[in-house]
């Protein structure tokens, strides 16, 4: 009974917060003031580590900026507390201001980075440079002209004699501060735990697992990243404010390079994916540093550097997860979350009668005079095609004919050098992929693009939650999975599915979106004969409610689909017609088999 409650709480991410609060209430009477001080500091650091876990471990954005936001929080707290405490007698408002200030800086920096779509390494560099430049900037604020209200910024020496956490005119003593910080840490932990366990957590996991797929489902990846980045900065800001209140001082060292490394080390040691790991990492690393300091005094950077090197080179997954795996190997019974085997029963692809709800309108898509050049190479030249008059349309052509380029122009992954693209009679030529998806364009890529680290069911749920412009009905997860015969594997991690099953899972994501039009890029690529046959059946079935455009290379597959074909060649339209018409055409046969003189 008791164990059940513990397990339920653990699942909701509430176990640690409750433990922490308990600790906060019980411990102060047991420990010395020095101990309380040390533990308070570790908790402040833990909050900082938690913020990196959220942004990096959960959402997959590596940021070196967390200690910048920690520092901004600390400085903002200092300025606000010095200015307001004398009149208000409390510093909780300063705590709030610290969170807001950190969030504000993060929003500005994040806007630049995410809307500029800088790559992940650039992101690390930009956030780090931001931190280091803040270090230099804050170090050069020594003059008397650098004051905000009554608060002197103090340059390299920083700001001393800050009020601690205070309520009703009195500052908390050391033990009360410990209890307060522990409760704050617990609350923030619970907040983050709530975020990552519910449906938001699935969206964040999707962001980490496969950004492209998120975009093709209709999520605005830039906005999502900005939000999570800003939120995590607010967390770090609170951590920084508590840090300033703990030490009653703040100086530019919070922005220093070793400090930036420290945050990454904590999280790497604790394991990127685990929220508790953030606190465990802080505890472990700080304990090791303290011990090392007792042996060789004042060599902390050396110790940290060595820890970082060892973790990266030897334990890239983090120390806690590595130990956990080791533990699981020793006692396999404890492996509660065994992944269902890859061998699966997919021999029957049954089609339920009511597959999905009917879209409000069968989509139409048109490319008008579309062209694309790469450097000196013209891949597509003034192409005009309309789709939507038939349930299925097929685009074929030999390698290099421009099929994939056309597909990418339609999906928004590439920008056309000329011409326009219209979807349901509105121009979408310049819209990003996610806007096209929201308008009802479902996109299936050639290499299966699913969330490999998540279960089949989670994959579909993320697709169902994707924002759309029309509020047409959504099929249930069960219906969608039944349609592609993956219902028995709903708990399987997508990475463990066979290649063909991954292809179907991606199709399931499209079904869950309920688009008016579905684009397929070589859906039969890498499939066995049997899988191909089933895919044909599935596409036919889907075409009863959705317009389908298939770009395909495999002629057997094309033939089985029995739909009108447009054949591309040398970047233009070469022939239109049915499969039989095309295959009887001497020129088409010649080109498709590479008779060079045919053209």
């Amino acid at each position, binding site marked *: 009974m008791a164990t059940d409650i513990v397990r339920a709480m653990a699942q909701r991410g509430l176990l640690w917060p409750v433990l922490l609060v308990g600790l906060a209430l019980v411990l102060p009477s047991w420990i010395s003031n020095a101990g309380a001080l040390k533990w308070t500091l570790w908790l402040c650091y833990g909050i900082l580590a938690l913020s990196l876990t959220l942004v990096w471990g959960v959402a997959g954005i590596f940021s070196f900026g967390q200690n910048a936001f920690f520092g901004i929080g600390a400085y903002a707290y200092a300025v606000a507390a010095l200015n307001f405490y004398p009149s208000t007698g409390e510093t909780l408002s300063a705590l709030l201001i610290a969170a807001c200030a950190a969030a504000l800086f993060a929003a500005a920096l994040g806007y630049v980075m995410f809307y500029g779509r800088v790559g992940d390494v650039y992101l690390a560099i930009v956030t780090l440079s931001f931190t280091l430049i803040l270090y230099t900037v804050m170090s050069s604020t020594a003059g008397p002209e650098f004051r905000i209200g009554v608060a002197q910024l103090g340059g390299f020496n920083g700001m001393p004699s800050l009020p601690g956490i205070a309520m009703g005119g009195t500052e908390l003593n050391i033990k009360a501060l410990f209890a307060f910080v522990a409760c704050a840490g617990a609350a923030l932990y619970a907040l983050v735990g709530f975020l990552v366990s519910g449906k938001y957590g699935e969206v964040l996991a999707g962001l980490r697992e496969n950004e492209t797929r998120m975009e093709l489902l209709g999520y605005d990846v830039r906005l999502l990243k900005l939000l999570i980045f800003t939120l995590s900065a607010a967390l770090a800001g609170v951590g920084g404010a508590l840090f300033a209140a703990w030490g009653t001082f703040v100086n530019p060292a919070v922005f220093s390079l070793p400090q930036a490394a420290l945050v990454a080390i904590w999280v790497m040691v604790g394991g990127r994916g685990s929220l508790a790991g953030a606190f465990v990492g802080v505890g472990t690393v700080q304990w090791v540093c303290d011990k090392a300091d007792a042996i060789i005094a004042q060599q902390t950077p050396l110790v940290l550097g060595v820890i970082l090197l060892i973790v990266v080179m030897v334990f890239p997954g983090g120390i806690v997860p590595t130990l956990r795996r080791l533990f699981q190997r020793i006692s396999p019974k404890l492996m509660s979350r065994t992944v269902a085997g890859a061998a699966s029963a997919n021999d029957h692809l049954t089609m339920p009668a009511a597959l999905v709800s009917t879209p409000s309108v069968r989509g139409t898509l048109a490319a008008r005079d579309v062209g694309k050049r*790469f*450097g*000196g*190479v013209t891949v597509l030249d003034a192409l005009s095609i309309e789709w939507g008059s038939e349930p299925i349309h097929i685009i074929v052509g*030999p*390698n*290099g*004919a421009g099929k994939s380029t056309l597909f990418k122009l339609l999906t928004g992954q590439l920008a056309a050098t000329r011409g326009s693209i219209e979807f349901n009679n509105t121009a979408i030529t310049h819209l990003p992929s996610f806007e096209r998806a929201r308008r009802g364009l479902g996109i299936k890529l050639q290499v299966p693009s699913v969330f490999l680290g998540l279960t089949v069911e989670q994959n579909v749920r993320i697709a169902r939650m994707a924002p759309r412009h029309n509020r047409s009905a959504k099929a249930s997860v069960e219906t969608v999975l039944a349609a592609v015969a993956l219902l028995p594997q709903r708990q399987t991690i997508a990475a463990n599915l*066979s*290649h063909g099953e*991954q292809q179907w899972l991606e199709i399931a994501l499209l079904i869950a979106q309920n688009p008016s039009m579905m684009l397929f890029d070589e859906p039969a*690529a*890498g499939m066995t*004969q049997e899988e*191909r*046959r089933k895919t*044909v059946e599935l596409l036919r079935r889907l075409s009863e409610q959705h317009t389908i455009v298939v770009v395909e*290379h*495999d*002629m*057997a*597959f*094309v*033939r*089985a689909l029995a739909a009108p074909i447009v054949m591309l060649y*040398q970047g233009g339209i070469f022939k239109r017609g049915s499969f039989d018409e095309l*295959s009887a055409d001497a020129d088409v*046969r*010649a080109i*498709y*088999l*590479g*008779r*060079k*003189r*045919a*053209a």
Partner: protein
Amino acid sequence: MRMFERSTWGANVLLEVTDLHAGYSAGVVLSGLNLAIESQCIVAVVGRNGVGKTTFIKTLMGLIAPRRGSIVFDGRNVAGMSPAARARIGMAYVPQGRRIFPKLTALENLLVGVKAANLPPRAIEPVLEQFPRLIPKLNNLGASLSGGEQQLLALARALVLQPRVLLLDEPSEGIQPSMLDEIQQVLLQAQQRQKLSVLLVEQNLEFAAELANTVHVMDSGRISRQVEPAVLLGSTLIPEFLGVTEV
């Protein structure tokens, strides 16, 4: 016993692949591929999309590590050698999609292999004579060349290495018909002049038929049979390649 067999009829064999297994991620794999290429022969391997042709040629060049099997070139097993080492002993590669260095000039593209082999820059001259079309473009960036020019450049880039075997992956892909003739001629000329063996992986049956001395059909990661080049021009294989016979 097997060793003995090989050495008796293999006097003329330049490149011999035995029981080759390879693959990466899901999908394309080689499973027990056998093929021998005699010196100064043009051998074509044809097959539908996705049967493993590109994996095969990349494994030959050392860009994909084989899981099993041997690749014997000129009497040595090269299966464990790096791509660069294979290039040094006379294997040259013309990849699918050409992979011209986009931000190097055409001339620099040619010089990469020459300099890597520590040959003098003038080593490109005899090869360049066979590519008059490239000469006015030598100072243009790779990215600015047309598809056909890039294909010629990729060929020339391989030929300047003075290779003994040329591994060609779909040289006809996406090329104007008019250019195909030129590519064919250049290839035949070079093959005769430099006494090359050529392994040609192709989907373009006519292109393959006109060049090759022998043609092998590849299916599901292995060579399924050998046919006469003329057969490619006839009608028996075409339905199979069009996919009319299946599903």
